[in-house]
């Protein structure tokens, strides 16, 4: 194994000041970079708006892609502005949605760009926006009398799934299974900022994969892309939650495993982002998605967050001095209270393969069978047993590299960095 170097490598840096001012511009640049790294476009993704409604009453407004819908009921007069949507005080949500959908259809749908309006629970979803240039389906979503977000009941937290593209990685090795990795890239408009959404999908299950990384915060920092036709990394130099997403069709390791696809990054919340921090392995891998496919064609997909009760958290593996089971001994490169890097006799840091391990079985349901196992290796990267500032430059063999994830030692873990080829 050792350093696994991709033949073709693509790199891009974007300044939040000079290179993009909107999420659409950013996503367009990133999609271009992913294609430049060798991924193939599968299809254009249409956008959708989800609105979670508690009630809609006379006078409420929803502005959708520049079209201002104003709800009213008699005996009030119809509104003198916008697109009036007549409802009744006794209408159910389903009836209101039906009327809203008709208004959308009459005013926004075209045969070339049909829209659909549906209701699940009390969430109205308007989907099917045809997009150009990773389009901008709504300039704003606003209303009164309702809330629209991913978390019911939190006022003012709206989101729009904007458009993007679905991309396909190169296959891994020469196995007989279809082992490409599908990636959806688009962005979200939120009332508290703009996020980029990267959704990895296994080619074996296009419908149920739960992987969603929609927490990349595009509002600050300079952004960077580095990747190949099998792995991409998108990261900002800010470093906190929401600053990194990595998606990899990993180097599969020995034995019964055919291939393993792994992604980690942030998810959004009402205030900011969860996970995807570059400041520790645990912080970076806090939200993850894993798709495992075995040579006998069995497979499994796992997603979750560190700290959840399922305990299937992925880990980066590397050697240590560790012995014992106390917290201080976990990968315990700590002697005399100090974290010690592992150096060769010339004082150079020894590199280790960035092996990724996790539990296939839920330790709660399978306390015996649930063991941590190495599923693959990240590409164009190595691990070192020393902490270093983010973005500090160095080398992996003859390639320029930077500190992508830096972890400072503590009683529970050791110093370590993940260096990524740039």
């Amino acid at each position: 194994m050792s350093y696994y170097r991709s033949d073709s490598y693509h790199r891009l840096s974007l300044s939040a000041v000079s290179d993009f001012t909107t999420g659409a511009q950013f996503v367009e640049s990133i999609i271009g970079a992913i294609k430049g790294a060798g991924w193939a476009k599968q299809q254009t993704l249409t956008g959708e708006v989800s609105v979670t409604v508690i009630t809609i009453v006379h006078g409420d407004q929803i502005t959708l892609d520049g079209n201002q819908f104003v709800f009213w009921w008699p005996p009030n007069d119809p509104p003198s502005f916008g697109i009036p949507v007549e409802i009744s005080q006794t209408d159910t949500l389903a009836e209101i949605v039906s009327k809203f959908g008709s208004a959308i259809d009459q005013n926004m749908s075209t045969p070339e760009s049909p829209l659909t309006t549906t209701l699940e629970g009390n969430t109205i979803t308007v989907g099917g926006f045809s997009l150009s240039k990773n389009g901008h389906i709504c300039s704003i979503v606003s209303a009164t009398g309702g809330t629209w977000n991913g978390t019911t009941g939190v006022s003012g937290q709206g989101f729009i799934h904007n458009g993007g593209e679905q991309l396909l990685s190169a296959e891994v090795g020469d196995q007989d299974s279809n082992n490409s990795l599908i990636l959806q890239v688009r962005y979200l408009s939120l009332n508290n900022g703009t996020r980029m959404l990267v959704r990895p999908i296994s080619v074996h299950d296009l419908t149920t994969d739960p992987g969603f990384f929609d927490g990349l915060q595009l509002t600050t920092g300079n952004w960077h892309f580095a990747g190949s036709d099998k792995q991409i990394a998108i990261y900002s130099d800010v470093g906190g939650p929401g600053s990194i997403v990595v998606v990899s069709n990993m180097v599969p390791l020995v034995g019964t495993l055919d291939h393993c696809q792994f992604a980690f990054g942030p998810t959004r919340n009402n205030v900011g982002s969860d996970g995807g921090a570059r400041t520790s392995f645990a912080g970076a891998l806090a939200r993850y998605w894993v798709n495992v496919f075995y040579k006998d064609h069995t497979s499994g997909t796992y997603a979750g967050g560190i700290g959840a009760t399922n305990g299937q958290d992925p880990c980066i593996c590397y050697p240590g001095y560790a012995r014992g089971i106390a917290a201080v001994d976990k990968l315990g490169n700590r002697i005399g209270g100090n974290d010690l890097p592992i150096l060769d006799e010339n004082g150079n840091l020894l590199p280790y393969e960035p092996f990724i391990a996790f539990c296939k079985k839920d330790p709660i349901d399978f306390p015996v069978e649930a063991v941590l196992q190495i599923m693959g290796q990240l590409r164009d990267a190595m691990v070192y047993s020393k902490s270093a500032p983010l973005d500090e430059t160095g080398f992996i063999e003859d390639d320029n590299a930077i500190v992508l994830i830096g972890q400072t030692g503590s009683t529970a873990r050791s110093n370590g960095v993940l260096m990524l080829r740039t």
Partner: protein
Amino acid sequence: MSLGIGPYYSPGPITSDLLDAGGAQNFLDDVRAALENSGWEKTSNVSGLGGTTGYIMRSRKPEFGQRIKTKFYAISGFPNGLILIIFSVLNDAESLEACCGRVMIEDDKVQRIICGPYQYFVFFDFSVSPVNTTQGLFRNDASCGIPVMKNDSSCFWGLGELNSWRHHLSPIRSQATDAQMVFYLDGTLYDSPASSGTLVFPQLLSLRSSDLFRSIPFADDTYAVTNTLLCMGTNSGIKTFGIWDAFVHGQAQLTKVTSFADLHPWEAFTIQPFDSGVEVGCLWLANGSQSSLRVGAYSH
């Protein structure tokens, strides 16, 4: 670490012999014969208990690094009157010396040695000795060697008794009387000091995870095989080397296990698999040199 490089092989020959530990002189002579078979040379005799003759022997020189010497001889003074064989590791000039293990002589006892031109391991093997001694774990291990190096500086290691790799991949100091941990690095000899709080004694690394502590297997439950990573130093500087004719495997072994791979015979050396209840791995030693190609065989 790299899984692809494989073990660091010495030019050999590798010797695996039984040692008659039922008598001091027989034992001393057996150790000498085994080391000579692997290319060590006797440089002088050492007078020992009861007129026995111990030896100072000189290793061969690896491509990088300096020769070492070892001294082994019989002493008495043990509380129950038994004889002890003291093993020491010395620099080539014999200006530095440190104990690297002690072996107790008992009737009918058989020890084993696995050695090559740059290192040796003397240890107790329950599968060959008729004596299941109650002292078996305490005074049966002596080992030392020149690490695999990248330059010609002088460096050596020594571990014995409870702290040999027979018992732990990553030994820590236990009791002073039962623990020999020594290394010479950057001009300083670290000879089993009373406190090891600021020292990394010679130890071997195994693959773990960033948040857990067990040795981590691959997806099909096999464990990583790594070329040895031998670390030693102080908390202001630690360096990593290798040891010869060996690899570390992530799976622990409860008993002696043998195998054949890469044209070499191997045996599991670390057979105390659980360290504070945690499986950490096993050091495997080549117990023979590369097999000759069979008649008619050829290699690409």
